[in-house]
């Protein structure tokens, strides 16, 4: 069709995996380029000169950076399997929760791995997860019956990233006792037919985090 789609990513990154999820859910063919972040390619530096980060999507020769921006672009360009709802108010709700995950949940979760006052950091992370759990309510996914924008942006939480980190570092973050609905959602997420093809290889990811965080028990 001449409308080449290329994706520059890193195998273990939840940010580049988000883009793959969106493309696969919509059945969009793309060429994937694995980047070595210790030795960034000339193409990456050309296509994302401002941040020099992945993911970068290239469509019709034009680059787009920032995963949430890329997701919106994908949703507007390929209409099959909409990621955002049609109704403006529901779209606003989805964008609000996607921002909440990015700007509140994820920093609070990461902070638990570095904070001096770990107990306080965990409490703060729990508060953000509680709000997320309340928003999920009894839905199968944040998107309703099927995966949507918020589910994809929350891939770090739903996929194996958080589970692995909390096990290796010895943190009780996403637990069944405290967050039964989020845990159920997380299971649905990793077992979803398309999503499971987009997750990084389990063993490889676990090994990566074990090296990164050390094997403290």
């Amino acid at each position: 069709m001449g409308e080449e789609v290329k994706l520059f990513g890193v195998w273990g990154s939840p940010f580049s995996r988000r883009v793959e999820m969106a493309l696969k859910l919509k059945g969009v063919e793309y060429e994937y380029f694995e980047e070595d972040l210790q030795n960034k390619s000339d193409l990456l530096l050309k296509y994302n000169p401002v941040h020099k980060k992945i993911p970068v999507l290239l469509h019709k020769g034009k680059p787009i950076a920032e995963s949430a921006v890329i997701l919106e672009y994908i949703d507007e360009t390929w209409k099959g399997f909409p990621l955002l709802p049609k109704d403006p108010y529901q779209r606003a709700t989805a964008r609000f929760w996607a921002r909440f995950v990015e700007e509140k949940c994820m920093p609070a979760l990461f902070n638990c791995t570095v904070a001096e006052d770990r107990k306080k950091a965990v409490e703060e992370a729990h508060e953000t997860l509680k709000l997320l759990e309340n928003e999920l309510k009894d839905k199968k996914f944040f998107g309703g019956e099927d995966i949507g924008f918020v589910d994809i942006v929350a891939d770090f939480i739903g996929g194996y990233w958080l589970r692995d980190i909390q096990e290796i570092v010895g943190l009780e973050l996403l637990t069944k006792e405290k967050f039964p609905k989020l845990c159920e959602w997380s299971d649905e997420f990793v077992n979803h037919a398309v999503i499971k093809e987009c997750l990084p290889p389990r063993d490889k990811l676990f090994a990566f985090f074990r090296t990164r965080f050390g094997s403290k028990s």
Partner: protein
Amino acid sequence: MEEVKLLGFWPSPFVYRVIWALKLKDVQFDYIEEDLSNKSELLLRYNPVLKKVPVLIHGGKAIAESLVILEYIEETWPQNPLLPKDPHEKALARFWIQFGLEKMRPIHQAYFPAIGEEREKAAKQYQEVLKIVEDQCLGDQRFFGGETIGMVDIVYGMLAYWFECMEEAVGVKVIEPSILPRLHAWVNNFKQVSVIKDNLPHHGKLLAYYKTLREKLVSARSTLPTPSNHDAS
């Protein structure tokens, strides 16, 4: 037409983003001033998650977070579009909006309460980031939106008016015409746009507000037990 209400706080640049977007699209709305030291039942009901302003209430439904509100306004009232039509151009606009949020915020948090020599160092860091915006986003355009203002101008609007008051409170200027000539020109052009000019908080009041706020932040730092290079952000 369904009722539109905006919960706001008079010094907040985030609230003004929403005011400008509504006015640019000629949307009638009721403005309700919030006392953030004594949050109203209305605010707690309509933004229970973050309890912050701005909150837009349209036909009884509430939307929070200024950037989310701007996208909602754009989709609900498509007249006088604030985002480009072309999907790639639109993605670029959103990229620069995100850049402002992620890159400028931590530098701003270091700059505003900075004391002594820290101020020059923070100002320099700020200038480096703003240089990127000036070169790669604004370029030779009059506005970020091109010939007329768009969503990126609205989001960066804080730099055009609030920031002068902050610079005065800190005592070290950032947007110097010799260092950021095009951004400096944008500041003046932006303030002249009639919807903007007619919708700005009182300069004297704003300056007093930021001076008081900065004093509080600076004195909170000096009560910390650790040495002055402790990160206050």
